[in-house]
Every structure is written in C-alpha cells, then in structure tokens.
C-alpha cells in the first residue's frame, strides 16, 4: 500500500473538508443570488462527502462510501427540484435576490 493516500495525512483531508464546508456556510449566509446559495449547499454536501470517504478509507469500512452514494443521489434529486423551483420563482417575480423573496412570513 504505497499509494498517494498513504503519504497525505488524514488531518489534511479533514481540514480540507472543514474549509469547504465553512465556505459553503459562508456562501449560503452572505450571497444574495439564489443560484449561488444553491451552489453553496452543494458545496457543503460535497465537503461532507469528502470526510465520509476519508474515514471510510482510513478505517477500511465500506459504509461511509455507501453513504456518499446516498448523499449524491439526494443531491441530484434536490438539484432537479431546487432548480425547477428557482426557475419558477424567477418567472413569477423576475428576480433571484433572496432578500426580496420573503413572502412566507406573518
């Protein structure tokens, strides 16, 4: 087992995952464009995927990889539905600024 993975320490992967996740959170919180917000969610999901794969590899457990497939599948479905909603919202209101899509309140 003299692969590249053996030479890169585990903590690097996890740090990368944490950085990606944090970027996703920050993007989600500060961006106004709905599509960007949506992409931030995808980024968070992929950050989590990365840590899943890391741990699976580390502990030689296949469960983590199975989870990754689940997450991808859900993300794909979410992308389909989410993009459809975004298109519908844009058609109805001609804007994608999240601050202005705030009808769901008392």
């Amino acid at each position, binding site marked *: 087992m003299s692969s590249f993975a053996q030479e890169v*320490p*585990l*903590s690097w992967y*996890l740090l990368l995952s944490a950085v990606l996740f944090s970027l996703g*959170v920050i993007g*989600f*919180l*500060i961006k106004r464009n709905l599509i960007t*917000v949506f992409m931030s969610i995808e980024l968070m999901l992929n950050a989590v995927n990365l840590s899943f794969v890391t741990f699976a590899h*580390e502990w030689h457990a296949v469960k983590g990889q199975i989870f990754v497939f689940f997450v991808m599948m859900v993300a794909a479905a979410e992308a389909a539905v989410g993009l459809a909603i975004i298109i519908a919202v844009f058609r109805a209101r001609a804007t994608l600024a*999240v*601050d202005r*899509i*705030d*009808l*769901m*309140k*008392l």
Partner: protein
Amino acid sequence: MNAHLHIWMIPLFPFAGFLLNGILGARLPKWVVTWIALFAPLFSFEIVENAARGLLGFGTLPSFPYVETCPVPWIALGTLHVDFSFVLDQLSLVMLLVVTGVGLLIHIYSVGYMHEDRGYARYFAYLNLFLFFMTLLVLAGNALLMFVGWEGVGLASYLLIGFWYQKDSAASAGKKAFIVNRIGDFGFLIGIFLLIGTFGTLTFAEIGAKLAANPAWQGGILTVIALCLLMGATGKSAQLPLYIWLPDAMEGPTPVSALIHAATMVTAGVYMIARTHVLFDHAPFALGVVAVVGAATAIFAATIGLVQNDIKRVLAYSTISQLGYMFLGCGVAAYSAAIFHLMTHAFFKALLFLAAGSVIHAVGGEQDMRKMGGLRKHLPVTFWTMTAAVLAIAGFPPLAGFFSKDAILFAAFQQGPGGMLLWFVGLVTALLTSLYMFRLWYMTFMGESRSPEVHPHESPWSMLAPLVILALLSICGGWIGIERFSQFLMPSTGVRVVESATPHLELYLTVAAVAVALLGWLIAHRFYGQKTARADELANAVPGAYRLLANKYYVDEIYGATIVKPLLGFSRFVLGWVVDVAILGGIAWLLGGTALLTGAILQRWQSGNLRSYAAWLALGAAAILLFMTAPSMLGAAGINMHLNWMGR
C-alpha cells in the same frame, strides 16, 4: 306447572312499539302507527292476563312468586350482585293488570283524542315508552332495576307533559315535573345506597329474608332507609311537600293525565312502599310519617280542589288527595287496602280524566268550568260515565271507591287514638272529595250552558268505548271486597294483625263515610245545583280564606321565594360570576394570554428572510456541536489530542 310465562316480554312489546313508532313513525301511514301503538299494550296485557288466569286456577299455575332472571349478570361487584330479574307475584300482578289494562284503554282513547295532532306518531312512541318503563318498574325484582323504571317513567312523563312544547307553559311544566321528581329520586338513590351498605343486596326477596330472620331488628338505620324511600315516593306520588309538579302536569294531553298522572305513574310511590313494606314494618316511626304525610296531603289537596275552576286542575288536586289516602293506608300498615284503593282509583280517576278529556274535546279545548254547563244534553255517554266516576270517587255504595276508601278509613280507625285522628282527617277529606266532585259535576253538566255560542258534540266511539268499560269497572271494581283482596295479596304484603273489630263498629264507620259523602253532595247541590251565584256569595263572605285556597296556599310562591330564588341567585352570582367568569374564565384567559404573548414575541423570528433562517440554523448546529464536544475540548490541547488519536 308452566315454567315459561315469558314475563320479560311484557316490557318488551311497548319498547318495540316505541322504537318502531319513534324511528319510523313520521314516515308510516297513520293506521300503521295506530296498530303498532295498540298492539304493544295489547300483547303485554295478554301475557299478564294469561298469568292472572293461571294464578286464579283457570290455566296452568306457576308457583308464585315467579322469578325470571336474565342469564347475563348486570352488576357484579365483590359480594354485591344485581341482575335483570323480573318478579311476578300477587302484588305486581295486580299492578300490571292495572297498568296494562288501563293503559290499553287509554291507548284506544288516544286514537280518537289525538287524531288531529301533528305529533301523532311521536305521542304514541312516548306513550309506549312510558308503558315499557312502568312495567319494568313494576316487575323489577331489585331496587336498582326499579330505580331504572322509576327514572324512565319520569322521563316519559317529562316528554308527555311537554308534548306540546311549542307552548311555553307546557315546556316549563315538564321541566318542573322533572326537577321536582329529581329531588325525590335523590332520596330514593340514597336509600338504595344505604340498602347496599346495610344488607349487601338489593333484591327485595333477600332483604325480606334477612329481616324475617331478625325480627327484633327495629328502627335505627332501617328508619333512615325507610324515610329516604318515602322521600322518593313523595316525589313520584305527588305528596307533601313535593306535590307541586302534578297540577302543572295537566299541561300535557288529557289521556296522558289519565294514564300517567292519575292511574299509574303517580301510584308508583305507593307501589314502592308496598313492595318494600318489610322495611317499613321494621321502622314504625317511618310508617307513622307515611301516615301523617298521607293524611295531611289528602286534606290539603282536597281544600285546594274546592275552588279550582280548571276542570283538569280539580282532578289533579283530587288525584293528589286520593294518593294521600293510599299513603295513609300504607302508613297504617294496611298495604292491601292501599293497593285496593290504588286499583279502584285507577279505574275511576282514569275515567274522570278521560271523560273530562271528552268534555274538553266537545267544547273545543275549553277547560274553564265557568264557561261550561248544561252539557248533559249534548254528551249523554260522557255524562253518564262521568256520573258513575263521580259517585265512585265520592264513596257511594256499591261503587268501587266506597269499598276501598272504607277499607283504608277502617284500618286507620283501628290504630288507637292517633289513628282516630287520621280517620277523622280522612273522613273530612271524604266530605271535601264529595263536595268538589259534585261541584265539578254540576258546573259541567247541569244547569244551562254559559257559553251558548259553543255547539258541543259527542266524541267518537274510540273515545267512548274506553269510557264505558272504565265506568263498568268503576261500578264493579270494588265488589271483590277487601277481605278477599287482602287474602289474595297476603303472600306479597304480609299478614296484618287486626284486632277483631265488632261488626257494629265497622257498620258505624261505614254509615259515617256514606253520610259525609251524601252531605258533600247536598252542599254541592245547594251551592252549585240551581245557580252558581250562591258560591260567589260565600267566597265574598270569607275573601281571605277564598284567596288562600284559590292561590293554592301560595305554596308555589313560598317555594319560589325560599328555594328557587336563592338557588337561582346562588347559581347566577356565585357559580355564574365568581366561579365561572372570575375563576375558570380567569384561568382560561391566563393560559390563552400567555400563549398569545409568547407567540407575539416569537413571531419576530419568522421574518421570511431565507438567510436569517439559515443563520439561525447554522448557529443552532454550532451550539449543538459545541455542547456535544465540550467535554473533550475542555483541555487546551483537546483538539490536538483528538486529531492525533485519529491520525495515528
């Protein structure tokens, strides 16, 4: 031996009639409703009659008392067992004959009387319901089942008094009857609880056996139980002080007054005392109270009856008075005489009410006797049957009322000095009875019509036939004689020890009773026979006394001022304002207000802004993460150790 009389079917038929007419009646044609309603009491009467013939030796003879118990237990609590058990003995047989027999006649009468009414099917459904509960009450083998029937007849009575519920007075009369009865029922219920506590059983036969095994047991708790039962009986049988509902109950249709408020339901109290007579026999004080209540009610109601002008109200007060006689009979332990009077009274009082109904029917709904008069010529059948009833209730020999009233008075006279006082009260009441009944008779049928514009017409034969049959019963009903009657009832009501009276004494008492009846007639003839003006002169001569009687001793007003008003005030202010509005309402407002206030604050969170939601979400996630990892992050090198361990 006939092992199967199927007495459980006696209540069943009226109940089936009630269900059929009650559910489908409005959609069925009238003649179907009529036949359903008539067949219910007819079948029940046939079963009772079959049993009676069996007992009298014309058929197969069941051993009495004959008990049928539903195989499914009703209540089984530890040692207490209460079952649906029906008992047919001499006492319940007599009562059942009266209830189903008179009931059948009144059903037939109602066909004619209620023919035009819109609630025809509803009326017969209620009437059958009443018969169901009444037969249940009579057949009940234990106090609780009797209580079910007791409450049930109260319900049927309420429904029928308020039958014309569009009329405000009828609706409130129904409520009054129900509420006043509830006061009595409360006593009955307490009595039942005490019976359970004292005897551990509610079956009449077992209570009787336990008391028979212990003849020295007297007074104490037994007196309390007996007084509680008496309270129930005064409610149902309209005795002092709970009689006030019965006069108002005349708001119901007249056949209902005849069946429920004269012949059957109001005698349930007398029946109950006779049924539980072993208890009263062991509680002499309670028995004395029964006698005093009965005598007081008899004379009290009779005096009010003297001045009433509504024909049905006169009969209502007369009923209360006659029920007082029955209580008097029970109170001097002459149960068979009381039941005898119950039976004859059922005949002639039902007849009086039905005849009065025929009169009211004839003059187009008028009930005020001052506007009647001279109806003799127009209503011959009604007149002659009514005459028979008047003679019977006034106590003229050889009509039914004479024998039974005489038996009660004779029994009272034999009870020593106190008994003689009771006898005297009974005798005065007999005078008053004769007086007010002939007053009614003269004012209604004799003289000239005081409303010439009304053209009275005789009632249809469906109404007259029951009148004729009841008239025959009122004439012949007493011929059995009290001796044979008490001989027959003896297994149920026990042997009464009577000191052998000299034949002379009995004769003197009889002569006295007939004399007062004649005297009553003569007085009535003098005051109402030729011209009624004489009665008005008398009323003007003693205005105070007249007003007192005409206003029924102001009892309703006194009850209103002392009980109803304080109770209403208490309900309105203490329960209504303090408890309901202030306490309960306050708690409700506090709870609701808290929720509203919390909501008003928390709704600021729901800004509709997606990013604010996300921020809260992230904050929450961070907080949970912190909470879960806090223990391992406490050390300065915590996170390093963690990573080191994982990166090993």
